[in-house]
Each structure stands twice: as C-alpha cells, then as structure tokens.
C-alpha cells in the first residue's frame, strides 16, 4: 500500500460513515467575526486532536532501548542506544523528537502506553473508524467528539477541523463539527486587493442587490483588516523555549501550517473548544527509518512550536493536545526495512495542565499476542478523561457507561 493519506481514508470510508457534504464550510472571516463579537471566555479549556494517519510505529516512537528483544526483532530498523533520547531507564524518544523531549523534561507530556481496543483490527479504515467512533464492537456512524458536539448548544464554531473534509471524529447524530479549508485564507492582496476595495465602495446607482454585493465585498476587507494582523504575524515564539534544530522534514509541513492557524485563531479568541488537525504518511511498510523519523520530527516540532506560540497569549493554560494513530505496527520487521500493520501504540497528551509522565503498562515484547503487542489501555479510558478533565463534560453521554480513566491531567 502506498502512503496513506487522510484524504484517501475519508474517500474510502465515504458512505460507511456519514461525513462531509453536510459539514458547514467555514471561512476565516466567519471565525474572525465570531472571535471579535463573541470571544471564548478566557480560561475555557480547549482540546486539539492530532490524528496520525497510516498507523504510526509506536515501538520506534517510544523505544524500549534496553530490551534486547527490541534489537533482535527488528535488526534493520532499530535505533542504537547512543542515538535515542532517553526518558527513563528503559524508554526513549525517537532521535527526531528533540522538541518533544524538551516538553517532556518540563513535565508537560503524558505518554500513555499500549493504547488500543479489544480484538484489534488491522485494516486502516476499520481501525481508524473504531478510534474515531470509540465503538470497537459495533460499526456506528458518529464520532466520539461528534456525540459530544451533540450535547452542546448548536454553534458552527464549536468544533473545527482543518482541511476541506470533516473527519468521522466530528460527525454527530444531530450536529457536526465544521471544516476550515486551509486555502480559505486568501484575501486579495496588492493591486487586485486595492481595486477590489474600490469595487466595494457604495454607488448611488446601486440597486438593493448591487448594494448588497458591494457591502459583502467591503465587509470582507473590513473584517480582514481587523483580523489580518493576527493571521499574518505568527504569534511570537516564547523566549523560554529553545529553538531546536534538526529533526524537521524540512520547511513548513502541512501540520505546522494547520497548527499555526489554530494558534492564531485561539489567540484571536475564536469561540472554538475542539480542534482537529492531522498528518498522513505513517504507513511505513518499507524503508521506514527515514520516513518515520522525518514525520515524527514534524509532529514533535509542530507541537512544540504550537505550545510556545500559545505561551505568548493568555490561553496557554487552557489548551491540551492529544496525539493518536489508528494502530501501531508489528514488532518484527518485514523484509523491506519496514513493518506491517500491528495493534497498540502510545498516545501523547501535551499541555500546561498535563501531569507529565508515563501512564499505562508498557506492552511486553516477550509475551506477544500472535506476534503483536498487547493492548494495555483502552482508548475509552483516555477519551473519558479528556471529556471529564478537559472538556468538563460527563463522559457517559458520549461513551456510554465506561469505568476506566487515566489520570494524566492535574486535578
């Protein structure tokens, strides 16, 4: 299978999950208007979901660098002890995750080990659907955050997914999240922009409809002049976070663009409590080492940059980031310097209010279940905690009766 992208996933699941067409399509002006007219009250918690499409290899993300079985299982694609970034005596980050290591050292990263669900499914599409719907036993067509959206007052700004298609995660039964296309940010500049402002002037000859057309163009510019400073200038990087070189795939990745926009809109006061961003390409069946470490570098650098951007706003205490992928990969490498589809993997929760450290048991490399890692934490434990401790909502409305919790948030 070639590089799996989110878009492909969405195309292939179209029809099995109700998404897409009905999702309100926002543009930056709508959000900007809302940010100005009804900003999110300071102190309101904000959740940012980061989806890694393709199945991230957890064992090469959080590496059991002292375990001889790790090296014997995947001689071609294991990381040498001297390269990894140790987190404790047994586990280390991938060498590309230098920025995330800084956050870890600041106790802002919770690593939840062995996350998955009963009877793991090795299909990208089925497994991602299970993760996003939080319904491993039964196929349903609402996402767990979509069901949370259903419990909230209707507001198209409440939950926003970057990109042009709504992920199943945000599809509710009654309501759904909105999508913000990345390309929706273009406001005419330069000469064309100036002449469009000329076109937008009122004319005595205008009929009602022509006046409405001119007004709509004028509003476009007036809103954009208020918000443009926010959007154009990236929030300054906080001085207390060292800029880490290396580990980036080079240049801006799409994920960092997405998170840049989220940071700016959070800073501007967008009335949005849940955001969704994503990165594809983790389906590393072949030549894994370079590809995966480049992607992990993007994830790590983008999130660190995002957190430091927020540091310069009043909202840095309010934001929690959660990172997941649809499955981990096989313990034993395949014959093409890669790994095939596996089962559980680590989740990361990042934020000022996160109680940094390890949660859940590290799956044993000795006692595999038909060659795969055991699931030691159910994703519903994590979701329930995010719902209660971050979104301050009862978990039962969204997840049904579910007892498990993972206490990774400061209370």
């Amino acid at each position, binding site marked *: 299978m070639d590089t799996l992208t989110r878009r492909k996933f969405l*195309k*292939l*699941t*179209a*029809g*099995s999950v109700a998404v897409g*067409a009905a999702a309100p*399509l926002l*543009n930056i*002006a*709508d959000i900007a208007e809302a940010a100005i007219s009804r900003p999110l009250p300071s102190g309101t918690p904000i959740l940012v979901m980061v989806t890694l499409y393709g199945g991230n290899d957890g064992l090469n993300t959080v590496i059991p660098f002292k375990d001889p079985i790790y090296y014997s299982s995947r001689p071609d694609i294991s990381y040498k002890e001297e390269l990894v970034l140790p987190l404790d005596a047994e586990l280390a980050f991938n060498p590309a995750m230098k920025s995330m290591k800084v956050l870890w050292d600041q106790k802002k990263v919770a690593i939840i080990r062995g996350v998955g669900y009963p009877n793991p499914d090795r*299909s990208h*599409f*089925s497994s991602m659907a299970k993760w996003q719907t939080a319904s491993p036993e039964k*196929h349903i067509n609402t996402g767990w955050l979509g069901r949370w959206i259903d419990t909230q007052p209707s507001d198209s700004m409440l939950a926003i997914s970057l990109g*042009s298609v709504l992920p199943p995660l945000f599809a509710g039964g009654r309501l759904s999240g909105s999508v913000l*296309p990345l390309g*929706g940010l*273009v*406001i*005419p500049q330069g*000469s*064309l922009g100036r*002449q*469009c402002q*000329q*076109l937008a*002037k*009122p*004319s005595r*000859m*205008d*009929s*009602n*409809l*022509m*006046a*409405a*057309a*001119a*007004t*709509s*163009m004028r*509003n*476009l510019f007036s*809103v954009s002049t208020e918000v443009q400073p926010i959007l154009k200038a990236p929030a300054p990087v906080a001085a207390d976070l060292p800029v880490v070189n290396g580990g980036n795939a080079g240049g801006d990745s799409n994920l960092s663009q997405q998170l840049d926009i989220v940071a700016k809109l959070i800073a501007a006061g967008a009335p949005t409590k849940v955001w969704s961003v994503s990165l594809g390409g983790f389906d590393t069946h072949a030549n894994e080492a370079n590809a995966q470490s480049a992607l992990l570098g993007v994830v790590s650098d983008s999130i660190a940059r995002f957190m430091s951007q927020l540091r310069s706003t009043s909202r840095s205490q309010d934001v929690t980031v959660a990172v997941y992928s649809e499955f981990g990969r096989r313990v034993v490498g395949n014959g093409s310097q890669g790994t095939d589809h596996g089962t559980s993997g680590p989740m990361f929760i990042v934020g000022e209010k996160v109680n940094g450290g390890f949660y859940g048991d590290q799956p044993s490399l000795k006692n595999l279940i038909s060659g795969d890692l055991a699931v030691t934490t159910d994703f519903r434990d994590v979701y329930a905690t995010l719902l209660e401790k971050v979104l301050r909502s009862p978990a039962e409305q969204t997840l049904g009766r579910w007892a498990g919790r993972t206490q990774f948030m400061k209370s």
Partner: protein
Amino acid sequence: MNAGRLEISRLYQRFAFGPRPGEFTAALKAGPAQTRNALLAPPAQDIGAQSVQPPLLTDLGQRPKPNTPELADFVLGIRTQREALMLWWLDLMVKSDHGLTERMVWFWHGHWATSMSKVDHPLAMYKQNQSFRAHALGDLTAMSRAMLNDGALQFWLDGQTNTKGKPNENLAREFMELFLLGVNRYTEDDVKALSKSFTGYQLTSSTGEVRFNEKRHDFAPVALLGTTRHFSGEEASDYLVGKSDCQKFIAERIWYRFLSSTETMPNNFSAVSAYSSRNMLSAITAAATDPEMQKVKNQMAKAPLEWFIAACRALELTPSQLKRPAQISAHLNKLGQIPFSPPNVGGWPAGEAWLSSASAQYRIEFATWLVKQSSLRALNEIPVEKRVVQSADWLGVAQWSPRTQAALRSSVNNPTEFTVLALTSPEYVVSA
C-alpha cells in the same frame, strides 16, 4: 439608462447564460424585439450542443458493503462518473447555441430538485437530466408523468417504499407543495390521498429504471382535491397539472427565477394566462415579453453556477478543458452551488443568499483561476482607451457605475486584473 439596453442585458443574463463575445453588440443593433425572438426560437440544429460528447456512464450496480475490497472500486467509479456527468452538463451550458434550452434544464433541475447525495448513481441523475431537456420548453402534463416515472426522483423521495397499506407521503407531498400546486393549496387529507395514488412504483436505483407493480398499488378510491375515485399515479399527476392552481404556481416560479426573487408577482403577469396551455415555451415567451422586463426594480442576483457559465462564455473557456477540472466543483462548492447537488428538495435559494462576504472572497479566487486560463481575446481586441466602456458590451452588462469604472480604469493595462474586477463587480454579479 437606455431601456433597450437593460432589456437586452436581462434577456441574455436570465433567459440564456450570458452573451459570447460580440453577441451583445450585435443584439444592441438588432433591438430588443429581434433579440428576444432569436433567444426564444430554438435553432433547427444546435451545432454547439452537438459538439459536446455524452458522458460515459455505466450501471455500477449496488453499493458494496462497508469495509469490503469492492467498495474502493465502486467509490472510484462513482467519483469518475460523477465528474464526467457534471463536466458534460457544464460544457453543454457553455457550448449550446440555444441558451434558453439549457437555462430551462437548469430551471427544472432546481424545480424537481433531486440530489446525487442520496441518489448516488450518476446514471440515474443523467436520465433525469435528459428528461428535463426533452420537456424543457414542452408540455407539463408529459413532464410531470415523466418525473413520476423518474428513478432518481422516486428514490430521492422514497417512492419505492410507498406501498398499499404502508404509505410514504414524501413524494406526494412534494408533488403538491413544490412541484405542481404550491404550499397551502391542498389539505393534509389530499396529501394522504395522493400518496395512495402514488403507491406501487419500484425501481432499480443504479440505473434509475422504474417499474409499476400493481400488487403494491392501492386501488381503493380516494378523495383528492374534491374528486373521489381511484387515481392511478399518472391519472393523479394529470389531474393536478390540470388544476388552475398549477397554472398559477408555475407562473409564480417563472417570476421568482426569471423576473424577481424579491418583488411579488403582479396578478396580471402575462405568463399566468399564457400557461393555460401548460406549454412552457408559451409561458416563457410571455414572461420575456412582459412589460415587467423593463422595470428597474426587478433585479436578480446571479446564482454561482449562472455566474460561472456566463464567465466561461465570455472568456471562451470550455469547462472540461480547464486545467484540473475537478477544481471547478471545489470552487462551486465554496460558493454553495454544485449542479446535481441541490441542498434539499426545495432547490437553491435566490437573491441576497448569494451575496455573503465569504462568497465575495471565493468569487474573486474563482474568477482569478478562470481568467488566467483565458486568452482574453475579446478584451484584447478592444483598444485600451475604450476598454472601460466597451467591456460592458463584451460581458452583457447594462451599465457600469462610476465606482466600477474607476476600478476598471486603474487596471486598464492589466487585462487579467481588469477582467477579474469586471467579473466580481456588483454590476456583473447582479443582473440589473
């Protein structure tokens, strides 16, 4: 403003999809009456339309179950055929030498508004579209029967689940409310009665074929709008079309889509009496000739699709030949209007709904994308010093305001920017 000029501009913008380069200038010379006669008379042969190849559509069968290997191929087939179907129609709207026919197909598509989102199968949508074309300017009795036997419409409104003893009112209600009579011109009992008359239709969704199964039909007499007897589906359709409310309702829809979406239809609007024949060409001819056509207050906003087709005609672009034609639906989607995907059975909105800040922004993007792909032949042939004034003739605009002239004048040496401004100006976005 010159009254003849306003009328000719309206004829082109509303009863066709805008002039091609040179057509408006020629029409000004010929005058409103001759222009109207030419627009209303279908040519013996539509060479432009004949140059558009029909889309390659096949029966894709039923949608495979979720998470099966067959699903990916099916979805790919649907996507490919949907794109082919849309480009075919867009091309036809741009290329047809008889703008009114495609304009009427577009009108009927918004009237019997059926969406691919539920119907799923492009082949069924294509058959419906061809049916609109066959009846575009013809007799409503025949058209209404054809729609009753249309697989896409039946499926869209759950007609196949409407059976004796287990009526589903969806199709019957919309036949009265949205298709033939208008809201409040019937009772709830009439809806129940009509749904019984409409029982027994079955269909194959992937092809849009409709069969009548008399075992599922309710043969009991019903009381429908004052007449008690058994009606077959087609008899009920004929009966509704014959009602005077139907005559008035279709005239109201013509008024709303061709004359004004904001002003109320005057009682003496000539399309009403002309439609006593139930012949659409008669009604449209009356509407195009009515004195209301000359009244300044009767303005219309161009819907996004109408704006796009008119721009393609002026820019001499063929939709399927554009770079990455899939981008067209991305642009139209942002503007909120994709052919074959109306938002609901009521069709698309009109008027100010199309004039939001967001759509202003998206229209600028869309125009920029289009203009860059055009040679701008017509504009470049106009001497620079005459471009501001004569571009109104090129685009069929009744009159530029001083505001817009100022913007155009600043860009007169930059044909790309000039054209983007002209296409996004209030005078082009709105049909004066």
